[in-house]
C-alpha cells in the first residue's frame, strides 16, 4: 500500500526509540510526537479534566490544544508541534496534566 512517505519520497535518517508510558515506540527524525504516536497506532494520549474522555489530534496546527501530552516531565505540550527526539519519555496525561 502506498504511504505518505512513499508519495513524498522521504528518506529520513535511521529510526530511534522513544517511550509512551514506558513502552518503546519507534520514531523517525523529523516526526512530531503526534506523528510518531499515529505511526504506532495510537490516536489518543490524554483524558479530559471533567469527563475523563480520550483526546488526541484535532486541529493539527497548535490552535485547539486537544493533543496535550507530557514529554520529559513537561506537561501540556502540544504533540502536533513538538518534534520527537531520541529517548523522549512521552506520558499520557489526565486532567490538568499537573498530577492532580
Amino acid at each position: 500500500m502506498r504511504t505518505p512517505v512513499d508519495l513524498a519520497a522521504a528518506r529520513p535518517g535511521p529510526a530511534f526509540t522513544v517511550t509512551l508510558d514506558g513502552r518503546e515506540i519507534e520514531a523517525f527524525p523529523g516526526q512530531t510526537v503526534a506523528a510518531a504516536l499515529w505511526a504506532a497506532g495510537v490516536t489518543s494520549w490524554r483524558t479530559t479534566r471533567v469527563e475523563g474522555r480520550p483526546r488526541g489530534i484535532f486541529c493539527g496546527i497548535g490552535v485547539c490544544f486537544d493533543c496535550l501530552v507530557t514529554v520529559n516531565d513537561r506537561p501540556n505540550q502540544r504533540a502536533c508541534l513538538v518534534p520527537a527526539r531520541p529517548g523522549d519519555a512521552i506520558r499520557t496525561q489526565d486532567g490538568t496534566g499537573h498530577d492532580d
Partner: protein
Amino acid sequence: MTERPHLAVIGAGPAGLAATVAAAARGVRVTLIDSAAEAGGQFYRQPAAALRARRPQALHHQWRTWERLRDALAGQVESGRVMHLTDHHAWLVERQSGRFTVHALLGPEQEEPAVVHADATVLATGGYEKVLPFPGWTLPGVVTAGGAQAMLKGALAVSGPTAVVAGTGPLLLPVATGLAAAGVKVAALVESADPRDFVRRTRALAAQPGKVGEGARYAARLLRHRVRTLVRHTVVEAHGTGRIEAVTVAALDGAGRVRPGTERRIPCDTLAVGHGMLPHTDLAETLGCRLDGPGVDVDGDQRTDVPGVWAAGETTGIGGAALALAEGHIAGCSAAARLNGAAPDPHAWAAAAKSRNGLREFFAALDPVYAPPAHWAEQVTDDTVVCRCEEVTGGAIREAVADLGAGDLRTVKLLTRAGMGWCQGRVCGPAVAGLAGCGETPGRRPFARPVPLGVLARAGEPKPSDAAQ
C-alpha cells in the same frame, strides 16, 4: 540614524513571504517571525527537513510559485536584508511611541522569550479552521480537514487507512485528493453545499478561469481515486468508543435540514471535517486594529487603521493563497515606501491590486455557497460537547440563554465556561454563537498564545542592550 528602517513581518505563509520579499527588495531591513521550523505557512507547509522528502511537491499544488517564493527569501536572507526567525511564536505586539516590540516565545516548548524591535509591522498571521459540532466530534480520529492536511504535509502522517472527508468549503477537495494520493482510502467526500449554486454565480467564476480549472483538476483526481462524493449531505454523528469507527451521513433538504430516512453509516477510522476558515486576529486586536467582520480591516495599501501596522492574507479575510500573495506583495511595497519616507505609489503594484480585487470578488461569491447547512444546530443534542476544552454541552449553552439571561458570547462564556479553556474559544466560538443565536463578536484575546507567568513578569522591561539597538 544611518541604519535602514526595520520591518517586522509576522507569519511566513504566502502573505508574509510576499511582503518580506517585496519590502526587502525595496531596501528595507526585514525580520520575518514565524512559529514553524520552515517557511511556508499552512498552505505551503513543508515536511520537516529531517524527513528528507525528495518529492515534497507531490503533497502540494502551485509548487512553482512556492519555489519562486522560497528562492527569493533565500536570496534576501543570503544578502543580509532579511532575518528569518523560525520557531518564534509571537504572543503580543506592543506599540509604543510609534515603534513596535514583537514578543515571542521560542518553540516548540514556548517557555523562553524573544523580542524583536521594529519601525513597522506586517501582520500575516493566517487563519485556522472552523468546525461546527455534532455528536461524536470529540472522538479521537475526528480531525479538522486542515489538521489532516497539516499532519500529512508536515509530518507525512495519517491516522488510519480509511477516511471520510466532510463539511463544506474549498479546502475539502485538496484534503480528499491529498489523503487519497497518500494511500488513504477516502470512503466519501461529504459536502453540504450544492454544486448547482456555483453555476448561478457564473459571473464571478468566469472572471477566474484559473479557479475553474483548479476545480476540474480536483474533480478528475477524485474520480481517479474513486472517491464517492456526496453533495448536499452532512455528517450527523460520529460513532465509536475510544476512537471513531463510523460516521452517519444524511442528505439535506433545500432548507438545510437533514432529510429523515436518508441516514447511512460509513465505516472509517478518520473523519476530516471542516466548515471554512477563520482569520487569526489576536495580535491585530490587541494593537487596537479595527476589524471588518471577522478579519482585520485594511485599506487599498493593506494598511490597518493603526499607523505602522499592515495586514495581509487570511488575517484580513479568508481568500486562499493567491489572494494572500497579492495582499502580501502590496503590504510589503506600501510599508517599504512609507519606511523609506516616500508616498506609496499604487501604480507600482497595479497588477497585484487587480489580482487581489478579482480574487476578493470571487471569494465573496463563494462564501454563501459554502455556508454551513442553515440548521446545523439541530444536530447538536443537549449532551453534545460544544466547548471541547471545558466540556460544555449544547444543553448548558441553551440553558444559559433561555434561563439565565445570557445575550452575547461573553455572557454565555461567563455562565457556562464555554470558551474559557486552553484554546480560548477559537474552536467553539462560532458554534456557541450559533447555538446562542448571537453574533460572533471579536474574541479579545490579549495573548495570542499562552505565556508562562515568569516570561510575562519580565516582558517589556527595558534592558541595557535595548538602548543600543
